[in-house]
């Protein structure tokens, strides 16, 4: 299944009443199980593109397709459901929920629909084990940054997404943790998940199948891995 974006345009009005073009992308295709990187200067529209591809960001125009599904044509509820089932997102700042244990954080997506926590608990423990997270009973506010990112990745993987988006997954980690998280992401990609990574981490970008550079909303030609 392919993720395809065609003729994307997104702009935001500015305080001086001018309009800033954030995305102006003619075409972007990502085949299943590919690992794709996106880099570019701050404010280039990288996060906006990620949100557009996941149906979070409404567009001025354009189409995003996942196989036969027109993401941009889905209603709010259907889009939420599609994202819940098909997409995993790893955030730069982890965005875990304090007051919950590791296991509760990881199983959180199961509470959005009809899946239920009980039926997914074993799966949660499995992914936690895979990412090397500490004791699942620990509260997330007691974890180190590296441990938090592992929990964030485990949460993204819970419902076996076919698309995994990671926004600067190693930016807040030291070198050792960054390397471990990178290894983890590529292990997952090897299992058939399409990986879309926004990063400035050269060591991470060098291991991806393809990398794009985004500047002022416009994508450069892809750089294929050697």
């Amino acid at each position, binding site marked *: 299944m392919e993720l395809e974006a065609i003729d994307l345009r997104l702009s935001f009005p500015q305080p001086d009443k001018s309009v800033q073009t954030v995305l102006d992308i003619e075409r972007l295709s990502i085949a299943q199980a590919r690992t794709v990187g996106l880099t570019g200067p701050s404010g280039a529209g990288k*996060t*906006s593109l990620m*949100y557009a591809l*996941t149906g*979070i*960001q*409404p567009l001025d125009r354009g189409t995003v397709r996942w196989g036969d599904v027109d993401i941009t044509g889905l209603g*709010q*509820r259907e889009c*939420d*459901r599609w*994202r*819940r*089932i098909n*997409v995993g*997102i790893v*955030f730069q700042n982890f*965005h875990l*929920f*304090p*007051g*919950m244990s590791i296991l*509760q954080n990881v199983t*959180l*997506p199961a*509470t*959005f*629909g*009809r899946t*239920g*926590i009980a039926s997914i608990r074993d799966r949660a423990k499995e992914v936690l084990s895979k990412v090397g997270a500490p004791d699942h009973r620990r509260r997330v506010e007691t974890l180190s940054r590296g441990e938090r990112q592992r929990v964030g990745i485990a*949460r993204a993987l819970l419902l076996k997404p076919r698309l995994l988006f990671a926004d600067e997954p190693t930016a807040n980690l030291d070198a050792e943790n960054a390397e471990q998280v990178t290894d983890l992401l590529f292990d997952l990609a090897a299992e058939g998940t399409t990986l879309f990574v926004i990063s400035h981490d050269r060591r991470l970008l060098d291991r991806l199948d393809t990398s794009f550079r985004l500047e002022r909303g416009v994508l450069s030609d892809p750089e294929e891995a050697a």
Partner: protein
Amino acid sequence: MNPIPVTFSDMRTNAAGIIAIVALIAVAVALGVGISAQERAVRQGGNVAAEPFDVLIGAPGSTTQLLFSSVYLQPAALDLVDGEVLRELAGREGVASFTPIAFGDNYRGMPIIGTTAGFTTLDDTAPLVEGTTFAGLYEAVVGHDVELALGDEFTPVHGMIETGEEQVEHEHDHVHYHVVGRMARRFSPWDQAILVPVESVWSVHGLGTGHEEPSSIALAMATEEGGRAEGDEHEDERAAEHDHGGPVALGPPWSALHIPGVPAIAVTPASIRDAYVLRTEFRNDPRTTAIFPAEVLLELYALIGDASTVLAVVSVATQVLVVGAVLLAVFSALQQKREALGVLRALGAPRVYVFLAVWLHVVLMVLVGSALGVALGWGVALGISAILAERTGLVLPVLITGKEIGLAGVLVAAGMILAAIPAVTVYRQSVSEVLRS
């Protein structure tokens, strides 16, 4: 869909604030519930205590004081009703029964009430729980909670309450009452009272027995009449001489030339019509006044009701303020939670999920606060009732009824509706804008 984990985690991370808000809600609800429950308790307790008294006749004066002294046995110096009234009542049409209520002595702070044997069982409608009613001049029937056993003897002390001041009170040293029975519970100050024949109270105070037969006391009195002023000690001696002596007639009709006065007379009319006739006639009689205790109570309740209405308004205003404060607190907290709620949406949570997470947060606080408030209000009302019972002997049954639950329910309902305001705000916010900000 189950947003409870998110709601709970949010509550856990803001536990101190949540506890403060819940406590505020609880206090506001407790105020309303406590006032409502306490007012009802006072009404019910007051009514139960007044039940045995259909019509009360007293000397002209304060009807409220007559009520409080006779029904609730509150110490007060009442003018006496002319004893002739007792004679008149004995043969009067429309009077099913009547009993004098003569107080003035106590034993260890428990009032000793001179009355008739029929009043100890409320004319057989409330049989004694043990023993028999008094048949002798110095026999006593104790109230349900009086700590005297059958067969005990005691000596009365002059004065309606125990003051400890020697100038005010003294023992009627030579008089010894003998406990022969215990009344059924009346849920009123009468449970702490000691009932004795009114003849003995008159006799102890040197007033004869109200009966014409030539008893030793009556004779003694007749010979010394006019020759003394406040010679209670001597009267006690004469009473003691009579103590357990020859038989003395007890109860109406009293036929002595001069029947002593009493502070109050409780009358049971033969019919409702008779009750109104009696009240009117004895109100118009310059020697007396007459009241329906229930009617006087209604007037008092109206005053209590006015006060409790003011308090209820204050309570509602407090609840409105508290709910407003809760909403402000929630809106303030939402600014910090916007990002987290946006992340939930990004992870695939539907909009209704975040709506419910926020809505439940407010509703749970209001629900728990209201439930605690009902319990707190009940507890406070119970405490106040216990203190009042200790001080007055009135049993004030505190019950939480549909009215109190309804009061709390209104707040919960208001909370459920108002909680939708912040929840809708979250529901409508743009995920991409929130995440980008």
